[in-house]
């Protein structure tokens, strides 16, 4: 027990102070009187001895208690959790020091007034954490400064047993996506208050940070994808930042963004060209225009699965049309699109083009879900209603709504209303209201709508469209349904009414998409004399359109991974929704998840059904190695076998730097909900007092009874003996 301990001690008595003083006076006087010292000034030493003796006895009778801070008795230890994740290396301290240095200078064991005060009153456990708490100094800093996990782990590991409190020194990095609510609830239940000390600035400056807001998970070979990124800059307002995207080190796209003032974020779209199949790691990087104190948040990474196999497109025409030829030519050489064309050339005669095996489409248009749902996109051309049975029309509806396929309706003399589809399910599927058959329009000039200028299928075509010839429209459509997006519209020419015709529109229908392109002869955009022979607008439009329609069409097994970007040591959950070849849910499927590590090891897990979820199954993996981890899900056997795939990207920094500023709100929330306190590092003085104040009464202090102290007895005996000896020596009675 050191001096510091007594500095905080206080004395408690059974009697009020005035009563004690009165008793002391009375007792001392009574003792002096009994010793015959009153009125005899020549015996002062004896009187003092007797008076002190009496005073001590009176004090002992007053039951003095010394109340001391309780360093190791009733109060348990205090855990000081020091965040040493990578974000603590950000040098945004006032003097240019890193957050780790600033925190360490105040909370290192035995260093500084804060720790001296804390250690004087509590036994202290010093722990550092990245993902999990560990003894200070045991390991180098690690990624994934997820605050909620070490707090929960503290209770699990036993280190938290009997804790008086937790002092959490952190920048509040909470990047794992795991909810802190669970850890907070467990701390609250254990009666452990968290006293959070925030380190760092809310918005480090100067700094440029980049995050990927939206990225497709699946793409086709040769696709140009839109990566939506957000670029924020503190201290760089008005400056231009270059953003690049690389696929395996190869430049795949770039953009420039002007940063707004006051650290606000600016959105940008980076168009990324993907030419290699497989799981691709796309690194997006923002080049800071000047000094940048947080290099770790300049880049982000996403994984895109570029399909190895081409997607399947079925084009069905009820009559021979040049559109068949020119669409096939437009797709020739496209490695991502496999086009099968079925043309009814005459009565009960069909021409099959692009079929992969002798059985495919041998019986005409598919009449089972298994045979139709193998395709990703269905193009219906000039096919009259009578050419399809009710069952086939119902399959077309299910192809879109249940299978999630894309349907493209073309114009033609037997298409849409002109083909009698005003009374079939196609009228419901169409994004544009099917009007009664209208007048033939021989020359409709296409123009982009505002939405079309931004859409990936039609953007940057405005200049080209202006030079392209007019198209013939057999099926004039004008009224897009609510929710439909019109990308191209047509000027029908003089005398045809003020409203433009719809030339390309789409909308969502169930799990899929439906688009309508009611022009009869887009091939004129390739063949017409006004079109230079080397012009590829027709090819470009068709490839873009079919790729866009096919890109998001799901596979029977839908796979999602949470989180998709993880840190070493983090646990990820793989969820699979399993459907059969007919895309009906298979709740009784027993899928297996296989995760391949960058070292080539394969970890297999049976997936457990999720109660209440629609054929969803889940498995968890704890990620050990940085790098890309493909995940493959398989279910069923033989012809009923289905498969899906996903991926986990494990990076050293995870997404820790994505929000590099001090997350004071999160730390305040932990403190508030556990009954603790929150201070910034600069204002952390009095931390011991705040810890003590949150302890239950009686647990922070110990009471030392003084009346029975041996030293008191010895003092009484010594005083009595001294008085007796002096009186004997002076021959007093």
């Amino acid at each position, binding site marked *: 027990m050191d001096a510091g301990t007594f500095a905080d001690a206080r004395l408690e008595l059974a009697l009020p102070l005035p009563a004690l003083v009165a008793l002391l006076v009375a007792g001392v006087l009574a003792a002096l009187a009994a010793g015959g010292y009153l009125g005899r000034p020549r015996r002062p030493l004896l009187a003092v001895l007797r008076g002190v003796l009496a005073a001590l006895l009176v004090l002992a009778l007053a039951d003095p208690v010394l109340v001391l801070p309780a360093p190791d008795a009733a109060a348990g230890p205090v855990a000081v959790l020091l965040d040493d994740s990578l974000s603590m290396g950000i040098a945004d301290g006032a003097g240019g020091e890193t957050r780790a240095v600033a925190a360490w200078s105040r909370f290192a064991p035995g260093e500084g007034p804060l720790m001296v005060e804390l250690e004087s009153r509590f036994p202290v456990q010093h722990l550092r954490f990245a993902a999990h708490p560990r003894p200070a100094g045991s390991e180098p800093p690690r990624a994934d400064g997820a605050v909620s996990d070490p707090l929960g782990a503290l209770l699990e590991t036993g280190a938290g047993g009997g804790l008086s409190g937790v002092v959490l020194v952190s920048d509040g990095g909470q990047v794992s996506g795991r909810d802190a609510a669970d850890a907070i609830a467990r701390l609250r239940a254990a009666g452990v208050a968290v006293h959070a000390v925030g380190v760092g600035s809310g918005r480090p400056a100067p700094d440029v940070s980049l995050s990927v807001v939206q990225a497709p998970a699946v793409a086709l070979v040769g696709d140009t994808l839109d990566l939506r990124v957000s670029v924020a800059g503190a201290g760089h307002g008005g400056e231009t930042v270059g953003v690049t995207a690389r696929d395996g080190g190869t430049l795949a796209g770039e953009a420039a963004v002007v940063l707004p003032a006051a650290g606000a974020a600016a959105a940008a779209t980076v168009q990324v060209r993907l030419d290699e199949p497989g799981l691709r790691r796309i690194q997006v990087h923002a080049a800071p225009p000047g000094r940048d104190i947080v290099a770790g948040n300049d880049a982000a990474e996403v994984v895109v699965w570029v399909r190895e196999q081409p997607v399947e497109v079925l084009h069905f025409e*009820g*009559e*021979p*049309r*040049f559109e*068949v*030829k*020119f669409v*096939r*030519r437009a797709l*020739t*050489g496209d490695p991502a699109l496999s086009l099968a*064309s079925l*043309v*009814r*050339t*005459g*009565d009960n*005669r069909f*021409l099959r*083009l692009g079929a992969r095996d002798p059985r495919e489409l041998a019986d005409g248009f598919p009449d089972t879900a298994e045979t139709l749902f193998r395709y990703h996109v269905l193009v219906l051309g000039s096919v009259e209603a009578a050419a399809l049975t009710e069952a086939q029309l119902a399959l077309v509806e299910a192809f879109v709504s249940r299978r999630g396929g894309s349907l493209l309706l073309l114009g033609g*003399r037997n298409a849409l209303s002109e083909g009698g589809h005003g009374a079939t399910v196609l009228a419901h599927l169409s994004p544009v209201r099917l009007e009664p058959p209208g007048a*033939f329009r*021989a020359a409709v000039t296409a123009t982009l709508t505002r939405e079309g200028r931004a859409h990936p299928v039609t953007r940057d075509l405005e200049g080209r469209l202006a030079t392209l010839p007019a198209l*013939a429209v057999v099926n004039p459509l004008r009224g897009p349904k609510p929710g439909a997006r019109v990308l191209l519209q047509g000027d029908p020419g003089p005398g045809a009414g003020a409203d433009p015709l719809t030339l390309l529109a789409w909308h969502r229908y169930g799990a899929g998409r439906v688009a309508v392109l009611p022009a*009869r*002869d887009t*091939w*004129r955009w*390739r*063949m*017409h*004399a*006004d*079109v230079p*022979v080397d012009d590829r607008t027709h090819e470009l439009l068709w490839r873009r359109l079919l790729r866009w329609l096919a890109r998001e069409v799901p596979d029977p097994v839908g796979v999602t991974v949470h989180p998709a970007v993880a840190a070493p040591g983090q646990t990820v959950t793989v969820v699979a929704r399993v459907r059969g070849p007919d895309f009906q849910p298979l709740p009784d499927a027993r899928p297996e998840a296989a995760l391949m590590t960058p070292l080539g090891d394969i970890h297999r897990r049976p997936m457990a059904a999720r109660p209440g979820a629609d054929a969803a199954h889940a498995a968890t993996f704890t990620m050990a190695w940085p790098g890309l981890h493909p995940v493959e899900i398989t279910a069923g056997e033989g012809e009923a076998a289905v498969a899906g795939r996903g991926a986990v990207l494990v990076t050293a920094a995870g997404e820790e730097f994505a929000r590099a500023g001090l997350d004071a709100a999160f730390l305040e929330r932990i403190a508030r909900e556990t009954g603790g306190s929150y201070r910034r590092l600069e204002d952390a003085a009095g931390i011991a007092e705040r810890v003590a104040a949150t302890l239950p009464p009686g647990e922070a202090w110990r009471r030392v009874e003084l009346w029975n102290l041996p030293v008191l007895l010895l003092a009484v005996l010594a005083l009595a003996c001294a008085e007796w000896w002096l009186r004997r020596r002076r021959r007093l009675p």
Partner: protein
Amino acid sequence: MGTGAGRWGAMAVALAGALLAPLAAADHERTVHPLTHEFYFTRGMYSAGGGGSDDWGARWAVDYPKADHQFLIALKRLTGVDAYPSDNAIALAEARLRDFPFLYVLEVGSLLLTDADVKALRDYLAAGGFMVVDDFWGTAAWRNFEAEMGRVFPERAIVDVPMDHPVFHAYYDVREILQVPNVYQAGGGPTHEYDGYVPRVRGIFDDDGRLMVLVNWNTDLGDAWEWADSPDYPLRFSTFAYELGINFVIYAMSY
């Protein structure tokens, strides 16, 4: 139609051609199609060389327009093609040619392309047009045609089309190539003209292996179309000519 039926027959045909061609051209001038149909049987109008026995004037118009009309009747009757029911003759260098991806040209033994024709034809075929060549016979006619096409595609050879090519099976399964005689030789005897003893179907392919030009050499499909309604014209030849012609159309619209 060729000239192998003899001098008098040839002169009669030449006279008929000379009389009919201007009428056909005049009829063509009056026709402005609103492109309401999917398919137009388009006949190519071209210049022909002068002199010698091939000096036939408007050689492009041989069998025109009856052959065209009759072929279209059969095409509409036998297939689902939405075909314009009448003729559609257009000069090779005319920009409108690019509205019609199917082109029929015959009697090319005396074909003489202008520079404008050469460019127009090259662009037409490169853009996706399909040309069927018919009714020219013998070595001399071949040399002329080959030379003229060499101006259009100097880098492309004219090669035989194998019998397993889709063009022979697009609608009908055509398993052998018959020599279709002109109407004057259809009644019996030799079916060839000049030294064109063996009928050939040859073609010019594009870089992706698709036929751009289909050449019927030493045969006369047009006459079979034109005279199919004649009791004297053998059904065997007309049937073959229609089957082959329909295959050409279906192929041209699909590949």
